[in-house]
């Protein structure tokens, strides 16, 4: 079976007054059915452009987008319109119809698919239950909170039983707690309805919470892609490092002194490493940051240490930590 989504050498550029902007440079990746795939990048990295190319809201200049092995670019407008009904999309700003109430918003895609009114109403009611919004059926979007609006948007996108769900910064306008609940809902939907989800975000924490694999975008190109845990513990490219660290950095890292980021996971030993380093070298290290995260269901500890200024001691400390099977990364 081919992957559900396959992007091949996709390129897209825009002509602007300031000149040409290469928003997507030779991007290739594929997503397996049922997977939750993350695309992460800083603002302007080209995430929205890329995701909009996946349902041809934006037409790529070159390359191809295959869904279930079929090229979207080769489709006629009619076929594309049909195909789009199977590729749902949710947005940062929800994009609900402001003049329709909640239930009629959910009926909208079914009107497009020519589902009979009574049947559509019934399905909409069921979907409202799925997203936990039954009591707001007759409310208008203006009367809902951001999280509630996104729940309605999710119900709406599920109406035509999509195979694929594209989420462009779907949680970026929400507070952390609402973000978590929306992500849980997406995860639940993906699992129970076997929907493939693509999550676009600039926040590492979002990817950590629900994605198994991730592609890191940097100025229009894929800097690296792979397992979230892999990239989180040992980012190889500058872009990935920046995103991983920016997710944890409470204070701007100070210049001059050497900092390292160490990761503990299931394989790490149970000895108190930080204490032992201090004892073994006779100089203290400064703990700048420490946290435990749940990545794909397993706990991963993360710490940023500031090492002594003397480069030889610092290097020996790094070697010491590496011997203890810790992932050590200079930052």
């Amino acid at each position: 079976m081919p992957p559900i989504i396959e992007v091949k050498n996709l390129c897209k550029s825009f002509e602007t007054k300031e000149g040409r902007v290469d928003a997507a440079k030779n991007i290739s990746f594929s997503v397996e059915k049922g997977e939750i795939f993350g695309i992460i990048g800083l603002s302007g990295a080209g995430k929205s452009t890329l995701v909009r190319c996946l349902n041809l809201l934006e037409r790529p200049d070159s390359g191809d987008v295959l869904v279930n092995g079929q090229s979207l670019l080769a489709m006629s407008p009619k076929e594309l319109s049909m195909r789009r009904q199977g590729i749902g999309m949710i947005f940062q700003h929800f994009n609900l119809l402001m003049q329709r109430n909640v239930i009629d918003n959910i009926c909208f895609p079914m009107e497009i698919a020519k589902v009979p009114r009574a049947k559509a109403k019934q399905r909409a009611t069921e979907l409202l239950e799925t997203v936990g919004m039954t009591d707001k059926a007759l409310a208008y979007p203006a009367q809902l909170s951001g999280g509630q609006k996104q729940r309605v948007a999710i119900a709406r996108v599920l109406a035509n039983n999509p195979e694929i769900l594209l989420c462009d910064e779907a949680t970026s306008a929400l507070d952390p707690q609402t973000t978590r609940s929306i992500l849980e809902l997406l995860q639940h939907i993906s699992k129970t309805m076997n929907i493939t989800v693509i999550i676009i975000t600039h926040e590492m924490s979002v990817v950590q919470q629900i994605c198994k694999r991730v592609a890191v975008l940097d100025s229009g190109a894929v800097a690296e892609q792979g397992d979230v845990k892999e990239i989180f513990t040992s980012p190889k490219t500058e872009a990935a490092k920046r995103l991983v660290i920016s997710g944890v950095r409470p204070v701007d890292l100070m210049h001059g002194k050497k900092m390292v980021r160490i990761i503990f996971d299931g394989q790490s030993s149970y000895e108190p490493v930080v204490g032992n380093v201090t004892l073994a070298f006779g100089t203290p290290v400064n703990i700048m940051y420490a946290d435990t995260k749940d990545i794909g269901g397993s706990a991963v500890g993360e710490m940023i240490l500031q090492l002594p200024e003397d480069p030889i001691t610092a290097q020996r400390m790094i070697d010491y930590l590496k011997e203890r099977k810790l992932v050590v990364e200079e930052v």
Partner: protein
Amino acid sequence: MVFEKEMITMLLEGTRDTLYMTLVSTLFGYVIGLPVGILLTVTDKDGIRPNAFVYRIIDIIVNIMRSIPFLILLILVIPLTKLIVGKSYGSSATIVPLVIAAAPFIARMVESSLKEVDKGVIEAATSMGASDFTIITKVLIPEARTSLLVGVTIVTGTILGYSAMAGTVGGGGLGDIAIRYGYYRYQTDVMLVTIVILVALVQILQGIGMIISRKLDRRIA
């Protein structure tokens, strides 16, 4: 200021004629202006079906028509009016130039209302596989309905004013009465009354339009 029965009847008939011209012209104005406004919105460069050629052509025609002074237009279209209505005077005849004057104005009002619709909502509809026709009928127009209705109100007021102007060249209605009695026969009281009626009509139409558009707006919690 006491009016004879005939005078009152005449004023009532004038009011009826003015309303008739205004409402029918607004209606036909929209029959032409609404599709043109939609076309302008859709073919503009950030519309759902950009087409620089079509947009330019309509844009120019609309601009030219809008810059012709109404009084000139009244005279210019006389042959056309005769062809359609059979005569060139009276309230029915006035509807022709009124529609021609109002349509480009309406097209612009419609264009500006439709362009207020959030691009994201249109994009969401496209992502669901909506056709252009569906986007126009189920997204653009319903989402812009408040603004469109405010537009209708403004248009109606403007046409009412134009209809009074047309009265001065034999168009019938209150304008006609005002010029015949107030201006030619120096019956200032009649002129004053017609003005008061015109103002009242504008106020009433304006008020109804605003109430309806506000009633239909769901964007306010």
